[in-house]
């Protein structure tokens, strides 16, 4: 009995799709080139190669020759909570960094990530996150002159 490697098959389809899109996009690159090849050729050729590879990958996904980590059946189901915490932290970081500044955004990301990995000491992590972010902002902005943006709470300027 051959079970189809579903993740692999979807990945192959995804890759093939990307290849098709980039191939089509390449064909619409125009440039007046008097002689020689234009800027469309290389992206097109690579896209075609990518589509061909995706077909081979699809075959491998179906006939079971695709050996990888995801293909091994594991007993422990993938935990969902970590993804939610990570995603939440990332989204919050992106939303908050411009209005509130680097330090609050980084602190939130720190706490959310630590929680994603199972650490439940919320206050401790919050303190650590704020401290880390403040140190980073101090070192990079003040000492090295790197721009980490403004915001409500910022050491810039």
């Amino acid at each position, binding site marked *: 009995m051959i079970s189809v490697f579903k*993740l692999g098959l979807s*990945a192959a389809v995804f*890759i093939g799709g*990307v290849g098709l899109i980039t191939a089509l*996009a*390449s064909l619409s690159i*125009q*440039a007046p*080139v008097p*002689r*020689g*090849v*234009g*800027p469309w050729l*290389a*992206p097109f050729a*690579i*896209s075609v*190669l*990518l589509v061909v*590879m995706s077909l081979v*990958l699809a075959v491998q996904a179906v006939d079971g*020759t*695709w*050996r*990888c*980590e*995801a293909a091994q059946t594991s007993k422990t189901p*993938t*935990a969902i909570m*970590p*993804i939610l*915490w*990570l995603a939440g932290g990332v989204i919050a*970081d992106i939303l908050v*960094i411009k209005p509130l500044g*680097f330090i609050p*955004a*980084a602190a939130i*990301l*720190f*706490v959310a*990530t*630590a*929680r*994603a*990995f*199972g*650490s439940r000491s919320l206050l401790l*992590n919050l303190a650590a996150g704020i401290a*880390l*972010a403040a140190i*980073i902002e101090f070192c*990079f902005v003040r000492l*090295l*002159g*790197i*721009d*980490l*943006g403004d915001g409500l709470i910022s050491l810039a300027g």
Partner: protein
Amino acid sequence: MDSLLHLLHGFAVAATPTYLLWSLAGVTLGTVIGVLPGIGPSVTIALLLPLTFQGDPIGAFILFGGIYYGAMYGGSTTSILLNMPGESTSLITAVDGYQMARRGRAAAALATAAIGSFVAGTIATLALTIIAPVIVGFALKFGPAEYFMLAVLAFSTTTALVGQSVVRGITSLCFGILIGFVGLDLQTGQPRLTFGVMDILDGFSLTVVTVGLFAVGEVIHLALHPEPNSEGSIQPITGTIGMSRDDFRRSWPAWLRGTVIGFPLGALPAGGGEIPTVISYFVEKLFSKRKNEFGHGAIEGVAGPEAANNASTAGVLLPLLTLGLPTSATAAIMLSALQGYGLRPGPFLLRDQPDLVWGFIASLLIGNFFLLVLNLPLARVWARLLTIPKPPLLAAILVLTTVSTYAVSQSTFDLMLLFVFGVIGYFVKRLDFPQTPIIVGMILGPMAEQQFRRALAISQGDGTVFISHPLSASLFVCSLLSLFGPILWRRLGRSPAHTKTNSVETGS
């Protein structure tokens, strides 16, 4: 000899207090990240890139070189003490190194690794010094057709000789090349593959892609698939770290053999430092009179591979500095750094930027010395690093990735890209796509294309120019061999007995 004079000049550049501090910082940072799993020299250098563009290129390169060499040392410490290699190049060291530690011989293992790395790194760097000008002289005859074929050779070796699957290697490579193509075409100014999105008109930032794929991807992977608590107890180090006479007698030939294996293999576009270490291990086993000790704590099994991986690190620098050809992901990132500073990589680099190149090479020798002095006494400290609890450590790494990305352009779009690439990186790991070809493709792809179009422009549209030039043709043949050779090799090796065992296996 000319090279040695250049090198002395390099020492004059590198031995200034500021640059010595940079070197010390680099090797220390490198050792730390070598110890920590999940984060490696390529990601670290990519992380630091935007932060160093403000400063001076020589200092930055001395830092990067220190990180590169330091990571090799750090990886071996954890291999020996904890059976947890911090770097893929230290995988083999763990085999006999950990066994030595379990038998109370951790001190000797660490000593042979550190001294062997120093010896190999020094010899290999000196070899680099002497051979580099020779290669440069030779490379000045290269035209665009030859450069294109050189890039093709790099492509074919990094896809075909690394990892299990050529198909997945080529897929990674194509993906990387396409990422590299996004943005404005250099010759005509036409936007390519930008799909109307203004933010990527300049292309994808190398830092965002590398850090996203490797670091963020790794964090996501660890969150979803936590590693079982493999923290075996840290093996105690009894006594001062040093070797007995007997250990030394057994080690030094292994060091020399490792150097000879590591340096040329590192210089070849074969994608990394793992292959030389594996070959060194098997060579040591082959030549040893104590074969049955291997796997149970044979000191040669540590000495050889450790020497090999440091020598291969110097080997990788040879094509990078002389031809502008990266043969590993870290080298590709350093190449990108050169471009970022407005320096032109290639044979002219040696001539146009002697301070940078020779100062850099001299700093490697200095850094190597620092590493020897640091690592022997501080090994216990480095091992302690691994007792830092994972959640805050990984959270800190993730925050650092955002710093680097945000510092480039203060753009939340880049932050989003960082995490998108992180998700892609997660699947790349899960589905066993090799990572090196993505980076090499992204950096070399556009360069190769430029050379291709230039070659055709010079030959006025004549496509046979790639085969009519003898050098270009031979490089092309090498590429074909490296691509199809392993497959043919495997086919030839298949005997009836083989196919029987294979058909039993495919049940999984």
